[in-house]
Every structure is written in structure tokens, then in C-alpha cells.
């Protein structure tokens, strides 16, 4: 009886097996790599805002502390976007009148908030809290990058679960003294590891890795 398959069918089967294995392994690996790229996590993409608000002018130029504008950061889950009344403290009609600020004045007149576009956003199933991080010595820079050098704010950290959990497992390398929370470009006075361990003891920093810490 003649062979049902020609000899080269063996090669085809082997090649198919290899290709199938590559696909089965390769596609998930490629997808897992993709979701970690800055493109998928939307890092480093400046977000257009209704007013060309520049953190460089205000933070570096005018030496305004982050907490002057984001004033709820120390006591609530949200850092808060400043209300228009915070801007008119300095940009009142007589001081520093600028056409750039027409929207702020309109917002004061009508009581309608300015519609800033969100930059950092977690999915709704994640619970995040600024106050605890700030109170335990995680600086703004650690999660938001050099905001003082951003013309338009962009998302500096990946904000993936592994990013959060990596720090929660071992916070010591990321901690700084409570007086330096809003400092940009802070460097530890001694080796960060030993310095961080010291701060862990001083501020009683726990390692929180239960799922219910962030998914509640």
C-alpha cells in the first residue's frame, strides 16, 4: 500500500509543532511585554490642558510648595486639583494680569470649575490614598517624577500593579525624611538602603501586600 502521507509531511508536522509552541508561548509573552511598555501604560505623554499651566514657572520659578495648591494631599485620599480661587490669590485682576488666565477669571465669575484633563488615573477597582504615602515618607517625586521640569504634566510612573506591589514589599529604598516630601531632586545623605531602613523604623512603615489593601 502506498504511503498515505509523503515523506516531507514529517517535516511539516515538526515545523507546525515548533510554530505552534512558538505562538503559544510567544503571543502571551509579547502581550505581557506590550502592557508594560510606556505606550500601553501611557507614560511620558504630555496631556493637553485648557490653560497652559506650567509647573516649571510655579514650582521652580516661584518656589511654591506643591501643597500650597494640592492642599488636601496630607489629609485625604486625593491630592486635589486647586480651585480657581487658589489661582486668583496671585493672579487677581490687578496683579499679574495675563490673557492666559481668562478662563480662570471666567470660572470665578460663573462658579463653573475649570475642566482640567486627568493625567494619572487608576482603574476604579483600585483604592489609592495620598495621605498615608505622604505621612510615611514617600515623596511626590517618587511617583510623579520631576514635575518641576514638566511644561505639561505627564504620567511618570507605570501605575501597574507590579509597580505598586514592588514598593509595598520593600519600601526602604524609596523612602525619604518627612521634611523632604515635596522636594524635587532629593538625594539621600548616606547610602539609601541603610538610610531607608532607619526611616522604616522611625516612621513605623509596614509592608502592605494583602490584596485588600488596594482592592477593597
Amino acid at each position, binding site marked *: 500500500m502506498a504511503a498515505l502521507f509523503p515523506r516531507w509531511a514529517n517535516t511539516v508536522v515538526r515545523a507546525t509543532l515548533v510554530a505552534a509552541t512558538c505562538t503559544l508561548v510567544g503571543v502571551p509573552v509579547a502581550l505581557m511585554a506590550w502592557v508594560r511598555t510606556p505606550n500601553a501604560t501611557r507614560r511620558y505623554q504630555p496631556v493637553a490642558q485648557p490653560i497652559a499651566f506650567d509647573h516649571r514657572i510655579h514650582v521652580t520659578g*516661584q518656589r511654591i510648595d506643591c501643597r*500650597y495648591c494640592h492642599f488636601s494631599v496630607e489629609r485625604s485620599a486625593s491630592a486635589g486639583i486647586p480651585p480657581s480661587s487658589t489661582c486668583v490669590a*496671585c493672579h487677581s485682576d*490687578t*496683579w*499679574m494680569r495675563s490673557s492666559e488666565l481668562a478662563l480662570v477669571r471666567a470660572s470665578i465669575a460663573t462658579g463653573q470649575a475649570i475642566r482640567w484633563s486627568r493625567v494619572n488615573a487608576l482603574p476604579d477597582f483600585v483604592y489609592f490614598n495620598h495621605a498615608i504615602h505622604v505621612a510615611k515618607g514617600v515623596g511626590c517625586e517618587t511617583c510623579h517624577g520631576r514635575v518641576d521640569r514638566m511644561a505639561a504634566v505627564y504620567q511618570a510612573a507605570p501605575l501597574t500593579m507590579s509597580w505598586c506591589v514592588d514598593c509595598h514589599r520593600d519600601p526602604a529604598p524609596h523612602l525619604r525624611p518627612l521634611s523632604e516630601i515635596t522636594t524635587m531632586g532629593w538625594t539621600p545623605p548616606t547610602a539609601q538602603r541603610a538610610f531607608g531602613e532607619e526611616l522604616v523604623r522611625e516612621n513605623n512603615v509596614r509592608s502592605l501586600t494583602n490584596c485588600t489593601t488596594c482592592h477593597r
Partner: protein
Amino acid sequence: MISTRAVIGLAVAFCPLALACGDSPERERLDFERMRLQQRYDLYGKSGVFANHQSMQAPPTGTVTRESALDTGAAGTGMSGGQPVASVPVSLTPAQLVLGERKFTIYCAVCHGAGGFGGSIVAENMGPPRPPSLRSDSLAARPDGYIFDVATHGKGRMPAYAVELTPMERWAVIGYIRMLQQSRTLTPAQRADSLRAAAIHSSDSLFSETPRAAGAFP
């Protein structure tokens, strides 16, 4: 036959992925109920219910918080018998003075300077009348309740800081300002502030109150 079915199967399996990876603005909605976007109001979110389309609404005018309703004494209002209280009506611990320094540096030093002399980068950018020195003799003679009133309700061009600072924090700031007024030694930042204040206020003819000269302090 099998291969055709496999191809169709694979195509169907990857279809949702192709959709999910597309960079459409509706991407958050098209993620097949992963609960990334839940039906609830977030801070700063949109609302279809209210006229101004904001989920965050200002409380109706005249709303009184529980704390402020309970706190009608001197500690909450800075007034007693219609007059500003003469001295801080709460006891300030050293830890609270440290808190006062921190809050002063964040909220007041922006305009009044790190040493309170009225010299800051923001003050330089403002036209006159500029933020005055908080170390003047006239302010030193004022009652503590007056500073509390200015911090709570604002004065002239100075905005109110009642939202940013709790009454206790405002008293802590006042304690720190009084400490500044009494202190004669300056940190380098305060010295720079006093020099800057002398420079900007002396070039400012509209400014009536002469700030203390930089040389007045060692």
C-alpha cells in the same frame, strides 16, 4: 478542514484583543467589563444630574460643618466679646510650633517670605501694594486674634486660608509668627528674605510701612 476551523477559532479569539488594543478614546469602555470604569461618581467626575455637570457640588450657602458649629468659642473664631482675642486661646506645644513652622513655610512664606519680612519671589512679581512684613512693630502690637482673622477671612488682596488650614493649624502658624517676631537670629534663608524685602520694598514708593532694615538683625 481542521486547519480552517483553527484559523477561524484563532481569529475569533483574538478579535476582542484587537478591539481592546485600539487607541480609541472609548478604550476604557471597551474593556469587556473588567470594572475599570464603574458606574459611580468619582472626585472631579462628570455628572448628568446637576446643572453644572460636576459630580462635586459646593455645599449650599450657609452650610455649617459639625466642627465649626461646635467651635463657636475663642478657639474657633478668634473673637471673644466681639473683640479679637489678645493671645492664642489654645495651649501650643513645641510639636505644634514645629507644625506651625511647616504650615507657615507652605502657605504664608510664598508671599511673606521665609522669615516673614515680606520678601519673596512672588512678592517681587507683584505690583504694589506688596505683602507686608510680618515682623513690623505695628503687627507685633496687634492682638493674636487679628492675625487669626486675617488668615481666616483674608484682608485686602490677601486671600483667606480657612480651607487650607484648620483653626488649630492657624493658631500654630500664629504661634510661629510670634516666635519669628521675637527671634533675633536668622537662618540663611531668612537672611536672604530680609535682604530681598529691603530691596523690593525700598523701590516701592506706594508702600507706606518701612520694613525693618536688613541690618537690624545680626
